[in-house]
């Protein structure tokens, strides 16, 4: 079930009403049933994979807590193997197969393992990471093992963040399912605000620029360099609005029932540095890698070369997390190199991190970061490296100011509205921004958002980009 559908709007209202009409002790059952329904609206059979990991991690959590030393570690390993195994099979099997075939084909073994027709279960990378964070935290003793199977299942399956995050930590989410939530106008208002802004980002901005991005990427050789650069910038906007929009709707849906999910985006294109960008982009994934990979590797409390290696490897793996393809790995590696470069630069010139509000100098740095991100998204968006080369070639050979994308004035106007809003909400989440504003300003913004969603929502069926991960 997609968030930007009538189906979801009805689902949301029904779940919300049921949640507050049911007694507390039955709410988890309803939420779990609703989450199952939500997930099964995609491909029903894949709920069995979720069920398998839930059962494994539930018992692993309890056994980890009960055991000591080596046994404890073995239970953690069992849980991680189950989760990573499923992820590896569904997401990376064919990638591995293709690469092995390519490599061993040179030695006369073109098909070392059979190719399988595998459909990636929706949101697999998200819920396996969330499940892993549970067993790791139990292992570390920072989280008590959940004894209530239904509540644990709900922790993994909670519908707002089931298929594309935010990837939650058990310390933040699990206890909230035990707490009794009373109806609160404040929560409902905050939730609705986030949903509306999320829908605006996804339906009005992302879905309206997407057709231009798609047509350019389909045949870059047919477009002028101006068109290609415009479409590349559009993709930067599309992926942000698509994913941030999704996250806001997820956070808002949970918030309306009184559940607090972590922030996932923080106006990332206004970052001044590479490291700041990653503190503001897909925060729940960045912090996951930080907590469960970067810090266990030693983080920055090691010798400089090892620190650089730690940064690099985290970004490379993060690239692979996004997709089983070399262009995602290259995308991650390039971000890693940029991070390493920035750390080294700051070490050499001991430049302090700039703080403060949005100023001219800040705008220049933000523009620089936008250009960098836009360039790197090329690797993310292209289906393969051939497409990257074709794009580069087309920019070089089709150098002209011709505009054949034919972007309507309305789309440009909507982009300006989006930019104004992003500047207004800089460093504030939309619901918090609204709290501090005069009702007239606040309601003017609501009216613009709601009217735009109804009148100008994109009409093509464009799935959320991060669903594929």
């Amino acid at each position, binding site marked *: 079930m997609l968030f*930007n*559908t*009538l189906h979801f709007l009805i689902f949301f209202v029904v779940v919300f009403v049921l949640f507050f009409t049911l007694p507390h002790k039955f709410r988890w059952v309803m939420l779990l049933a609703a989450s199952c329904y939500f997930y099964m609206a995609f491909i029903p059979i894949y709920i069995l994979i979720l069920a398998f990991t839930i059962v494994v991690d539930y018992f692993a959590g309890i056994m980890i807590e009960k055991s000591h030393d080596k046994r404890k570690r073995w239970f953690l390993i069992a849980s991680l193997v189950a989760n990573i195994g499923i992820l590896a099979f569904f997401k990376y099997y064919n990638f591995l197969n293709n690469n092995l075939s390519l490599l061993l084909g040179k030695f006369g073994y073109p098909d070392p393992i059979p190719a399988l027709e595998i459909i990636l279960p929706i949101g697999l990378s998200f819920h396996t990471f969330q499940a892993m964070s549970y067993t790791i935290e139990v292992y570390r003793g920072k989280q008590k093992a959940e004894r209530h199977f239904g509540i644990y299942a709900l922790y993994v399956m909670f519908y707002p963040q089931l298929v594309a995050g935010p990837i939650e930590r058990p310390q933040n989410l699990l206890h909230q399912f035990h707490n009794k939530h009373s109806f609160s106008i404040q929560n409902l208002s905050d939730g609705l605000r986030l949903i509306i802004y999320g829908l605006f980002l996804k339906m009005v901005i992302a879905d309206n620029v997407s057709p231009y991005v798609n047509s350019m990427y389909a045949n870059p050789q047919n477009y002028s360099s101006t068109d290609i650069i415009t479409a590349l910038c559009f993709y930067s906007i599309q992926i942000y609005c698509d994913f941030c929009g999704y996250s806001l709707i997820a956070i808002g849906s949970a918030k309306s029932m009184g559940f607090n999910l972590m922030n996932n985006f923080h106006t990332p294109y206004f970052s001044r540095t590479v490291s700041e960008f990653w503190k503001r982009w897909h925060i729940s994934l960045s912090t996951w890698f930080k907590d469960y990979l970067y810090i266990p590797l030693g983080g920055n409390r090691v010798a400089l070369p090892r620190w650089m290696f730690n940064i690099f490897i985290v970004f490379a793996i993060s690239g692979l997390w996004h997709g089983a393809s070399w262009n995602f790995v290259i995308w991650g590696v390039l971000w890693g190199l940029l991070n390493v470069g920035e750390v080294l630069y700051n070490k050499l010139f001991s430049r302090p991190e700039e703080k403060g509000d949005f100023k001219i100098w800040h705008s220049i740095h933000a523009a620089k970061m936008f250009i960098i991100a836009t360039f790197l998204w090329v690797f993310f968006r292209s289906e393969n490296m051939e497409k990257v080369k074709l794009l580069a070639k087309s920019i070089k050979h089709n150098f002209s100011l011709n505009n054949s994308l034919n972007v309507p004035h309305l789309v440009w106007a909507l982009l300006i509205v989006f930019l104004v809003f992003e500047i207004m909400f800089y460093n504030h989440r939309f619901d918090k921004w609204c709290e501090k504003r005069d009702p007239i300003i606040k309601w003017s913004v609501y009216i613009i958002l*709601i009217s735009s969603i109804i009148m100008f*929502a*994109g*009409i093509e*069926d464009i799935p959320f980009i991060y669903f594929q991960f």
Partner: protein
Amino acid sequence: MIKIAKFIIPRVLVLAITLIAANFIYTKFFFEKDLQMHADMINLTRGKDSARVIYMGESSNFTSHSDDKDPRSISGMLCDYFPGLNIQDISHGALHAYNYYIFLKTIQNNSKLETIIITLNLRSFDANWRYSDLETFLQKQMVMIDPTYPPLFRRFLLGFKGYDNKTVKERERQFLHEWETTVLKVPFPLQYNTVRKWDKGIATNGYIDVSGNRNEDSTILACHYVKTYAFQIDTNKNPRIKDFDNIVKLAKQRGWHVIFNLMAENTQKADKLVGKELVYLIKQNRDLLVSRYSKMGAIVVDNLECVNDSNYIDQNWTTEHYKETGRKTIAKNLSEALKTIYPQYYKSIVADNK
């Protein structure tokens, strides 16, 4: 409670005013552009206010053969019989009853329309057509054209996919499921009681031609005939029934005469390729429709068997695309029905139905 009401009521009011204003702005400045961009079928319905008779059809109306001397549509040929009567058509490939119903709803109350001729295509009731991948495209168009709701709400439904929006794969799953699970019930022994089994049976045994050999092309075609015609209309579940019923109801409300033009199907080929059992099912569905809509006060022109195999354009597929003779025959049959409503306009012509 009062606190909640004080909180909610002003907000609801502001929202309501916003929506009314937005509807005004949208209708005035954006609606027509959106219609042209996302629902250009609206143009089919425009400029028909002067018509006294409207013929609604799909590709069966206008498809002609390259050898036809007269390539005109059925509706065009029908006009020959009624020179003084303003007959117009609304035709587009792959249309079905739901589309006709929506189009009819757009006709203004002050139009001169008196009679509607609606194509009643048997195949439009089968799973293959109902779950066709074209359906999403048609549904998108209809949601914007349907005048039941204000333009802003239609745009909302379009944006939020408030229509039957399914992927090609999902639709494929639907008709495969129906072929697998719907049991055919006939008063004689039937070797295969589901489409799936029947299709598989023919594919396995093959079509044996006069020389006693398996003919691969005919086997494929026979399988296709089974998948197209081996169904029994369930009047409670088949959405087309609801659509045709709605058309009759709407016509009654608006005081229009209704003529259902039940299209010819290639029963000769069905008989030759598959057998009497399939023809039985086709005729059973025909009888059901003729009886149902006659009882509801519509005139049903039964063309089912009026076109010979040789007059079908597509010999390797199931379509209602007729050569000139076929179209002329149907036009003539229709003229007989229309004559009962407009005897004063009728002009007898000698049909060249060779």
